[in-house]
Structure formats: structure tokens, C-alpha cells
């Protein structure tokens, strides 16, 4: 695969130029302490982190990026189909597929792994045409992390830190404010061939240079290897740990709605006020921590207790989906849920508490 070497500024200028022709999403500052993948405009202030950045000096933190970039592939409230009545009085359905090309740039290994997992989920069994159509038309430009982004991250512990699969172009920080750009797919190659950056002949050496620079240990680590965590969460059903971690919980769903591997939704039909014979079905993001999530027709709620909902969430991330897809942890360790929960309930602590509780068991 081909590689190029150029300055950070040149790459940012390139993204700004691309942003004038198509939708380019990049992590931009939001509010006082957050980030948001927003559309790049001509005068957007874009930044990549420095090769020599000390921890804490980084321009981007995954956990304070409210919505993960992968949500651009299944936006909230997306229309699934429109309906209308034809001349014979029969309803006709027209699926809505979004084929606009777009680029998501500056996304990190944790979010990249999450998109890979969402690709698996949405291609499994009944393929989700809405997601897959957007995905097919999306170029992913990922960026390596040499320092843990903040005190919430545990991407190395969940096996996401070195994730590259799914990226079209992968950026690795280099000394002297430079970036190594590697095309990992044909689409990435085409994009880079057009960009006019200088080819790089010593890709391996440059990768190794960055690897040497990578912080060791990197971010938080569980009290046991990942497989033990997964086994422990899989075996924990009745446990006081579930109750402990909901004492302060509001059942607010934030931990679901900001998670890059939460994909549940709720569908709604609505008719047009100016033509009641036509309308649309749309879906909005849902989350298993919300009280009404498991209510079925007739009003029965399968998980009225909050602790049971918390257990369900954690088992989806660290037991059931890993077993179903065989692609490792479905928690990618981005740290969002723990950071954005207003009472600091963190899947990382829950996993460690379950490990400790299992150890203590006779």
C-alpha cells in the first residue's frame, strides 16, 4: 500500500479544500470542554495533535466528543421510507437511501473499531440498507493516538488502540509537525493520488518511530486481561455489583446515546398534515437504560428494574455481542459513557468490580 509524508498543515488545508466539494466531518470544539464531529467550512479551525505532545496537551479527547463519529452513518430521526396512496387507493412505499458522498476525518482507533463492529452488526442477518448505503459512500480518514487522550480512555485494554481495519486512509503523527498518510483501501489510494503529497519510501521505519513514541502503559487497564473480563462479565448474573452501580443512576440513557457501539432504535410513523394519505416512517435512537426500552405491546416491561437494565447494557458490550460476533470487545474503551454520565458511572469500574467480586467468591 502506498504512503505519503507531508506536514500537518498541508493535510488540514487539503481537508478544508475537500470540505468545499463534499461533506467533511472533523472533530471541532463544542462548548467549553467538548468536541463534535461537524462539517468543515472554509474557515474552520482544525487541529491535529503533536507528535511530542505531553499527556493532557492533546487537542482531541474521545470521551468528551459528545457523539461518536460513527453516528453520522445512522443519524437520529432518519427517515426509513415514505408512503403515499396511488390511484387505486393502495399504499406505496419508497425507501429513503442517502447516497451523498462524505468524509469522516480525524477519527481515532477506538471509533474506527466501533465503525467496524457496526459494519458487522448492520450486515448480519437482515442487512440494514440505510446504514450500508451511507457507509459505502463514506471515506474514513483515521488518526493514530500516541498518548492516551485523557484519564477516561481504556482503548488499549479493550484491544482498539492498534485498530486500522475499515480506514481508507490512516494518519500517523511524525516528528517536525509531519504526518505519515497510508492508503489502506483503493478508495484511499484514489483520494491520496489526487492530493499531490510527496510519496514516502520508508513507511515501516516511520511507523516504528511512532510506535516507540507511544505511551507505555497506555491509558487505563482492567485488573485482568480482556478475556478474563469477558469471561467474568459472561458469568455474572446475580451480583451485588449491578445494584451498587445504579444507586446514583438516573436512567437517563446518556451512556447508551453517546456509545459508538449502541445502535438500538425505535420506529415511528407520521402522516403529512397537508396530505394525510402520505407520510413517512422514521427511527430515533433508543437505549436499554431507558425505562420504556423493554416495554412490549400490552404494556409489559421486561426490565423494570434499573439494575437489570445496567446489567443488560454491560453484558451487551462485554459478553453477549463479543460471543455472537467473535470480534472482541464491543466496548471499545473510548471512555464516553463514564465521562458523560453526570454521576460518573463507568463501565470500566463495573468490570473491575465484577472481577474483584468473582475473585472474592469461595
Amino acid at each position, binding site marked *: 500500500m502506498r504512503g505519503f509524508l507531508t506536514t500537518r498543515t498541508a493535510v488540514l488545508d487539503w481537508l478544508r479544500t475537500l470540505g468545499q466539494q463534499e461533506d467533511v466531518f472533523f472533530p471541532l470544539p463544542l462548548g*467549553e470542554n467538548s468536541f463534535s464531529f461537524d462539517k468543515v467550512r472554509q474557515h474552520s479551525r482544525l487541529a491535529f495533535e503533536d507528535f511530542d505532545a505531553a499527556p493532557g496537551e492533546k487537542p482531541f479527547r474521545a470521551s468528551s466528543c459528545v457523539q461518536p463519529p460513527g453516528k453520522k452513518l445512522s443519524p437520529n430521526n432518519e427517515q426509513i421510507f415514505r408512503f403515499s396512496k396511488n390511484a387505486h387507493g393502495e399504499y406505496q412505499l419508497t425507501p429513503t437511501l442517502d447516497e451523498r458522498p462524505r468524509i469522516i476525518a480525524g477519527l481515532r482507533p477506538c471509533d474506527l473499531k466501533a465503525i467496524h463492529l457496526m459494519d458487522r452488526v448492520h450486515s448480519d442477518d437482515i442487512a440494514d440498507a440505510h446504514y450500508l448505503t451511507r457507509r459505502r459512500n463514506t471515506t474514513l480518514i483515521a488518526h493514530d493516538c500516541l498518548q492516551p487522550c485523557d484519564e477516561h480512555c481504556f482503548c488499549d485494554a479493550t484491544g482498539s488502540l492498534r485498530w486500522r481495519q475499515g480506514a481508507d486512509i490512516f494518519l500517523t503523527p511524525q516528528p517536525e509537525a509531519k504526518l505519515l498518510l497510508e492508503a489502506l483501501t483503493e478508495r484511499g489510494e484514489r483520494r491520496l493520488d489526487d492530493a499531490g503529497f510527496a510519496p514516502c519510501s520508508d513507511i515501516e521505519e516511520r511507523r516504528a518511530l511512532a510506535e516507540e513514541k507511544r505511551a507505555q502503559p497506555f491509558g487505563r487497564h482492567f485488573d485482568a486481561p480482556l478475556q478474563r473480563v469477558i469471561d467474568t462479565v459472561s458469568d455474572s448474573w446475580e451480583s451485588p455489583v449491578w445494584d451498587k452501580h445504579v444507586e446514583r443512576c*438516573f436512567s437517563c*440513557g446518556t451512556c447508551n446515546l453517546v456509545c459508538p457501539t449502541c445502535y438500538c432504535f425505535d420506529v415511528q410513523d*407520521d402522516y403529512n398534515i397537508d396530505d394525510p394519505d402520505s407520510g413517512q416512517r422514521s427511527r430515533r435512537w433508543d437505549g436499554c437504560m431507558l425505562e420504556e426500552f423493554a416495554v412490549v405491546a400490552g404494556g409489559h416491561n421486561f426490565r423494570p428494574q434499573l439494575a437489570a437494565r445496567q446489567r443488560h447494557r454491560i453484558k451487551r458490550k462485554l459478553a453477549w455481542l463479543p460471543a455472537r460476533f467473535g470480534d472482541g470487545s464491543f466496548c471499545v474503551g473510548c471512555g464516553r459513557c463514564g465521562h458523560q454520565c453526570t454521576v460518573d458511572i463507568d463501565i470500566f469500574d463495573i468490570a473491575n468490580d465484577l472481577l474483584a467480586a468473582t475473585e472474592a467468591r469461595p
Partner: protein
Amino acid sequence: MKLKIAFFDMASCEGCQLAILDCEDIFLHILDLVEIVEFREALSETAPRFDIAFVEGSINREMDADRLRDIRARCSWLVSLGACASHGNVQARSNALSPAENLQRVYGAEACHTVHTDPEYWPLWAHTRVRAVHQVVKVDYHLRGCPVDRHEFLHLVKRLVAGSLPRFARQPVCVECKYNGNECAFAHGETCMGQITWGGCDAICINGGYRCDGCRGLLPGANLEAHRALLRERGLGEAEIDSRYRLFCSADVGPQEAQP
């Protein structure tokens, strides 16, 4: 046949009715679906029976309660319109004070003795209290908020017209706040009532850079103990917390559990 709808106002600022009149861009289409038979803000007619009654405002006087019972008897669905009707709103703050103290606060220590307090005419200070609509008659649906959200109003009308059930998700403001990708108020040193407040407003105040003050009322089963503890941790004193909780009074009047 078109559904007949009627609007009534009790103790309120009529802002919710105005919020609905604000649907002017689609108002004519709404009139294709329903017939408005009573609406003091826009019409002078009155009607003996109607399908949906929207009641705005809290119930402060016994004569209002009687009027409300009469409305209930004349409609199929009764909808509480806005925070006053749904949980009393700011005027229900007076419930926390004795009638004498109320008088003093409103009119001052001297003048309060000269205020006419004929209980037949104005029993508020004398012996009654501010009530939400559901504390007097059965309410079928609540449109919450100060003022109501026009999308929720439209949703309700469209669903009832189509013969299906309106749905107002029982979830806090945080959900829509996250839909909109906002930075959480707590992430910049602010505090917020969003986690314990009934959503449906599209988190409009946080979208605008402010916090949620809880105008849509307390979510049933909300974890108040944890919320008060969090506000304390963020530096709010007990009195300040009480005042936040009491602003729209939903904590005092209590949420109505039943919402079909």
C-alpha cells in the same frame, strides 16, 4: 366527521394557547382535520359537546373546579395544556405558605389587613390551594411545558384524528439533549434539572446554551436523592436546591402516574 376540539383557560398566562396559535404556517391544514368549537383566543362561539378539550391553567378557585367538572362531562378526551394545568406551575408555590403569610408577601405587612378576602368570591387565600387539572378530574393526556411544544400538540391531534394512540416517551430531557449532541451543562460547571425532568421539549434550553430548570415537571420515579446529592457536590446549598425544585412546583403537586 371532523373531531371537535375546544380550548379553555383557568389560571394561566394564556401563553400555551398562543404557542398553539403560533402553528400559523400549518393552521389551515389543522382545520382540515379538526373543527375548533371553542377558543377564546380566536373564536367567540361556545359548544355543548366536543371530542377533545384542552384545558390550560391551574385550578385556584372552587368555581373553576366546578367549571372543569362540567368540561370533563362534555368531552371524550381531556388534555392538560402546559405546566400550570399539568402540575400547578409557579402559582402553586403559594401552597407551601400559610394563607396569612401569602397575603403578607403579596401585599406587604400593612396593606394585607385591608385586603378583601371574601372566601365566596376569592377563596384562594382563605382555604383552598392551587391544584393541577388531574387533581380535580381525570386527564387523558398531558401536554407539558411552559409553554407547550407545538410538535407535541400536533402529534397528539394527528394521532387522535387517525384513531391511534399518541405517545409521549417517559424519558428525561437528557435523551433529546444527547440527540442534539449538546455539551452537558455539568461539563462546564453549570447544574441542570434535565435528568429528573420529563422530556419532549427537544431540550430547547440546553440547545440555547442554558440549563434545564424543569418546566415540564418531575419524571415519575426520578432518582431525586441522587440528584440532590449531585447538586450538593456541585456547590448548591439546601435552600438553593429547594428553590430549584420548587420553581415549577412539580415536586410539590406530584406527577400524575397514569398516562395512556
